[in-house]
């Protein structure tokens, strides 16, 4: 079958859309109050916890813990489950907490039950040691008591929350844009070697589609920034570099339209395309790594690996890249055919 890749692209796009939107997020802790407690003064301590995507009311055994720096767990003595996503945890902490180096320490909050598994909020609650009785001992649980439930869900990340799904759109679109640009560069080089005008039209249609993808990537990125960083546009280095990259390719377009002779146009456009691609690499890949950036992979942030892209995300992310790239190739092919027809109509 000749057009298998078009069908594959449609299938992958559908897969990305459906799976990307329907797979739930892992449970997590959304909010809690108070954020600062003093032990030894007002015991017991009540903490109101709002969770996300949990089934606290259906679970048989809910537990709330505070984790100390050396992995000792303080268990809540009593829980009031308000709804599926709301619980009040009462702690009784009579004595000094073990392994406190200073008088003040931030403890990690953990909620778990047998249905959802555990969810945690690192360095959540700031604990200050008040007038505790040095003779009293607290009871501690170990990490083994925490229940783990394996299920297929996207990771729950603070700040990102549901917007982590944008990985399949924003990041994947940019990836495939780069693949299209590389392919377009290949055609430009081919034109310079063979002087075959066919390669030139292919290269130009690929660049047009890549430019379109670039705009789509900027728009999705801007929406993402609105919900995570607070504004549509930040002064982040990578954003400005990407905008510049788009300017470069708009300029390519202008260059093409300003030269009337076909052969000259093809030659100049091919040279500029290669030149621009190398500069684009410097712009987007090299420069941002020298300065601080909010993007992963820059300024010490982790990139595509470790915690940011877990296996659940990968199962959608990589097919999404392939899907977008095939879609882009398809669009470029249509654009190329259109230019062929137009040239024929003009009598070339």
């Amino acid at each position, binding site marked *: 079958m000749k057009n298998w890749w078009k069908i594959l692209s449609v299938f992958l796009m559908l897969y990305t859309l459906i799976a990307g939107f329907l797979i739930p997020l892992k449970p997590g802790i959304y909010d809690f109050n108070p954020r600062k407690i003093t032990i030894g003064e007002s015991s017991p301590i009540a903490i109101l916890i709002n969770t996300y995507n949990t089934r606290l009311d259906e679970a048989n055994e809910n537990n709330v813990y505070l984790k100390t720096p050396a992995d000792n767990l303080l268990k809540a003595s009593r829980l009031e489950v308000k709804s599926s996503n709301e619980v009040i945890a009462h702690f009784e902490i009579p004595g000094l907490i073990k392994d406190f180096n200073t008088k003040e320490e931030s403890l990690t909050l953990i909620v778990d039950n047998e249905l959802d598994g555990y969810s945690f909020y690192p360095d959540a609650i700031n604990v200050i040691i008040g007038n505790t009785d040095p003779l009293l001992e607290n009871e501690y649980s170990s990490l083994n008591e925490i229940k783990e439930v394996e299920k297929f869900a996207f990771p729950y990340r603070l700040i990102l929350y549901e917007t982590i799904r944008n990985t399949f759109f924003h990041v994947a679109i940019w990836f495939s844009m780069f693949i299209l640009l590389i392919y377009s560069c290949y055609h430009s080089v081919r034109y*310079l070697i063979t002087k075959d005008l066919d390669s030139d039209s292919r290269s130009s249609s690929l660049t047009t589609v890549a430019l379109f993808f670039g705009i789509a990537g900027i728009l999705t990125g801007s929406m993402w920034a609105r919900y995570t960083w607070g504004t549509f546009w930040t002064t982040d280095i990578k954003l400005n*570099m990407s905008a*510049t*990259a788009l*300017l*470069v390719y708009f*300029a390519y377009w*202008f*260059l093409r339209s*300003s*030269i009337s*002779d076909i052969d*000259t*146009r093809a*030659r*100049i456009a091919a*040279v*500029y395309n*290669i*030149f*621009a691609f*190398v*500069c684009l690499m*410097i*712009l987007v890949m*090299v*420069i941002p790594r*020298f300065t601080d950036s909010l993007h992963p992979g820059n300024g010490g942030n982790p990139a595509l690996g470790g915690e940011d892209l877990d296996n659940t995300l990968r199962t959608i992310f990589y097919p999404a890249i392939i899907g977008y790239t095939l879609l882009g190739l398809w669009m470029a092919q249509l654009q190329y055919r259109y230019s062929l027809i137009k040239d024929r109509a003009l009598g070339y």
Partner: protein
Amino acid sequence: MDARDKQSLLASLLYLVTITFVIFKVFGDIQGPTRIGIYWVLLLFTAVNIVSGCFGTNASKRKLYHYQLYDSLEIYLAKLITNFSKVFIAGLVLIVLFRVFSDTGLKDPVLFLKTLVLSTLGLVAGMTFISSLTIYSSNQGSLLSILALPLLIPVLMIGMKVSLVSENMFFDTAVDSNLLMLLGIDIIMLVMGMVFISITWKA
């Protein structure tokens, strides 16, 4: 070869003096990072001004003559050297102008000059090459700025950063690596220009 066009350099320098004068009259005394920013923007526009004419002003007959006489690489290097010295002179003049108008000198002249040399080289190498592309189009001047400015932003940004460091406006231990990076970009620009000039120039 290009030395005949002395008046064009003088015109660019006059342009530089005028625009600096206007800017200092409008803004009053400029200090801090803005000063460096304005310095580089002024230098950039002067460079566009200087470089944009370099391939185009040749009358077509003279071009034919050059075409027979020289290799395209020689032409490129010759243009590069003249443009570089012109823009570099403009940069020096700009330093003097800033000194005259705002009465504060450079804090680390050596580092500043190093940056000036390297970034000027990068700017000129990129622009000279791109101006050889624009000779085929009808509106050369504006096309050069559209094509070249986005491509030269990395050079400009690193240059600006290092010169801020040289003015003690912020501290960065990675100055040397930034300079090396600048040199690397310069080399990439030069090599690409040398490779492609034979394709673009022969028409």
